[in-house]
């Protein structure tokens, strides 16, 4: 019988069944919602709101637009002006704004905003603002006499761009673009640090993920197959790093790997290396990789273990009895069944590694810094918008990865433990 032909089911007293069911369940649903409400509010206030705020900061900055109303108005009236040769009226508006900044003490804010895209403008603004009140028309000549840099087309392009509160500028800077006299262009090779660092971060994270997988696979297998008493002991060893402060663990690696450290001393005393040929394994990329692999290893072991634990040994036995060698059994029967664990562990480790900050900051030195260290650098330098733009790009990359993972393997097959 077709669904449409079926009569609407009702309860004994004639109410529609669906409505009766909803009414019966609504109380339980309300209670369940009230139970999770505190957590929901907490997450909303401390996690989602700051993230949304940061994302907005990456494309919004009113440091210049708010403190230079005259110039903003002029830009609005003359959208097609030539930045290479701004007319007198534009200079007049600029001088008016500079004088106003001096009074309202907003010079620093405006200068900093322009400085993001045109370096060296903070001092230019301060100097201009100090003199602005004394300048007389024609303002173009007067201002250029104070500093010839006021005539640079890049500066005018920067001011035009900053006159809008909403701007893609920070994303352009984070993609190694540079504001030149002719507009936005790719920076010099030696100045392109952001994309290089993005690439490096992803490569190092991939490398750490692979090392973690190779190290974790046998351990997880052992954990899953050992008798209970022994596997419990091994599990404690795996979890021990979780219970130790990250700082302590990282410092331990410094003690081990630095030039006067345990490993080098041992190698020298054994005679494998000379005293002046000590290996530098700390404060560089090697240190970052070693320490991060150690920190992230449990995140690979646990998902693998949770998958391997439920693979019955009879599969391997069946494969062997059917004539497969132990290698074929591993490759064709065991390994495919651990794939959800491998995928979950790899995704977890990779995402954690891409955003890792503290370990590279402590042991990375100059050469072992990752993209999150750069984000932190810009936050301490008060360029929150640029930091937010880089972070947003990182977030987008991770979401993309997540999407690809979902298409290839399926998020529902993910097993974290």
């Amino acid at each position: 019988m077709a669904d449409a032909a079926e009569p609407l089911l009702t309860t004994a007293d004639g109410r529609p069944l669906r409505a009766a069911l909803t009414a019966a369940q609504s109380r339980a649903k309300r209670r369940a919602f009230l139970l999770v409400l505190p957590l929901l509010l907490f997450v909303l206030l401390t996690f989602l709101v700051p993230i949304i705020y940061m994302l907005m900061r990456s494309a919004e900055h009113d440091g210049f637009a708010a403190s230079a109303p005259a110039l903003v108005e002029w830009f609005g009236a003359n959208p097609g002006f030539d930045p290479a040769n701004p007319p007198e009226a534009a200079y007049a508006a600029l001088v008016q704004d500079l004088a106003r900044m001096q009074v309202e003490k907003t010079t620093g804010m405006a200068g900093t905003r322009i400085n993001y895209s045109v370096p060296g403008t903070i001092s230019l603004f301060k100097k201009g603002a100090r003199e602005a009140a004394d300048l007389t028309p024609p303002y173009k000549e007067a201002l250029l006499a104070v500093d010839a840099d006021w005539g640079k087309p890049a500066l005018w392009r920067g001011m035009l761009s900053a006159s809008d509160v909403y701007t893609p500028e920070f994303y352009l800077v984070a993609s190694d673009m540079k504001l030149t006299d002719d507009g936005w262009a790719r920076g010099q090779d030696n100045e392109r640090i952001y994309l290089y660092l993005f690439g490096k971060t992803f490569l190092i994270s991939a490398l750490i993920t692979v090392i973690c997988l190779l190290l974790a696979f046998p351990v997880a297998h052992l954990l899953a197959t050992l008798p209970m008493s022994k596997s419990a002991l091994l599990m404690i060893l795996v979890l021990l790093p979780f219970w130790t402060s990250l700082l302590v663990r990282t410092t331990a690696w410094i003690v081990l790997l630095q030039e006067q450290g345990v490993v080098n001393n041992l190698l020298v005393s054994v005679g494998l290396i000379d005293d002046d040929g000590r290996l530098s394994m700390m404060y560089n990329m090697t240190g970052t990789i070693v320490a991060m692999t150690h920190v992230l290893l449990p995140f690979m072991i646990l998902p693998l273990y949770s998958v391997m634990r439920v693979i019955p040994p009879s599969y391997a036995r069946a494969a062997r009895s059917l004539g497969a060698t132990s290698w074929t059994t591993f490759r064709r029967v065991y390994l495919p069944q651990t794939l959800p664990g491998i995928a979950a562990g790899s995704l977890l480790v990779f995402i954690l590694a891409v955003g890792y900050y503290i370990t590279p900051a402590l042991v990375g030195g100059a050469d072992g810094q990752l993209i999150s260290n750069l984000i932190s650098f810009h936050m301490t330098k008060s360029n929150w918008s640029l930091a937010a733009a880089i972070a947003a790009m990182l977030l987008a990359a991770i979401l993309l990865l997540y999407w690809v993972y979902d298409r290839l393997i399926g998020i529902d097959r993910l097993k974290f433990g």
Partner: protein
Amino acid sequence: MTIEPRNDAFVAFEHVQKSYDGVTLVVKDLNLSIGKGEFLTMLGPSGSGKTTCLMMLAGFETATHGEIKLDGVNINQVPPHKRGIGMVFQNYALFPHMTVGENLAFPLEVRGMGKSEREAKIKRALDMVQMGAFANRRPAQLSGGQQQRIALARALVFDPKLVLMDEPLGALDKQLREHMQFEIKHLHENLGITVVYVTHDQGEALTMSDRVAVFNDGRIQQLAPPADLYERPDNSFVAQFIGENNKLPGTIEELDGDKALVRLGTGELIDATAVNVKQKGDKTLVSIRPERVEFKPEMMPPGAHTIEAEVVEMIYMGDILRAVLKVAGSDDFVMKMRNTLGQTKLSPGQKIKVGWHPQDARALDP
């Protein structure tokens, strides 16, 4: 109770012992030979060593001592994948990431068989278990019974001479289990393969096997065809383990060849067949099957001893009537009667006399 290994045996265990911890033996001096084409069942309670024996034969456990021979060749050192033994596991062990067809192709692929030959064999094996239409399904999409058939087909697809089955029907419901018992039995007959079957279900063992080896405590207690096992158990364990059984403890009063007169603890005398009692005065446990107990004098042999019994409870079971009797001090003595038209109706409290043919009462070890 073992038989001497024959030289022409297809599978032979010779003085096999197995210990896991170096302190206790799980399998104690096992000697067993299995003929070509035989269906042999290893039956026993859990922990009796039957599965260990099967695992040693499959190659997943190594014998601590002794030799295991397959077709006259010692296979102690042969790894499992070179033994060419098909195996059906309790939980089927179908590879979940492969389709049914891929599962069946696996043993053929690892043997380097060509695609067309593979497909022909897979089709034949699937048709054999009436699962021809399921080659593209995943194991998870099949019911328990269907998975069981596929597991069977996979163990047979590479034409092994010997197939081991480790409680293959344990996870199925009763009706399906009985149906599969017949199917496995028919496959065995049609293909002429040798089957070693492990189960703890005595009904299964009796239905399917040519011979049954009853395991307990690491030893074979009795190795015999099903009818012998049921009707002529060698010792109390087998009598107790196979089927329902009444046991009456007593002492041998007279012993004449295999005829014994047993005095029960409460003083009554009964007839029995001496099985493993040595001399007059030995303690014994007399075993009688409930369906061999008679209460009508005309059904008993002339001169048979009878004893007093009181009906405690009557249970109606449809095809049979089950009477729980109070006999010689114990009140769990069971008598089964066919539910025929003219069957005498007994009621609780009724006093009757019961007796039996002396060969149905077996005086066993205490």
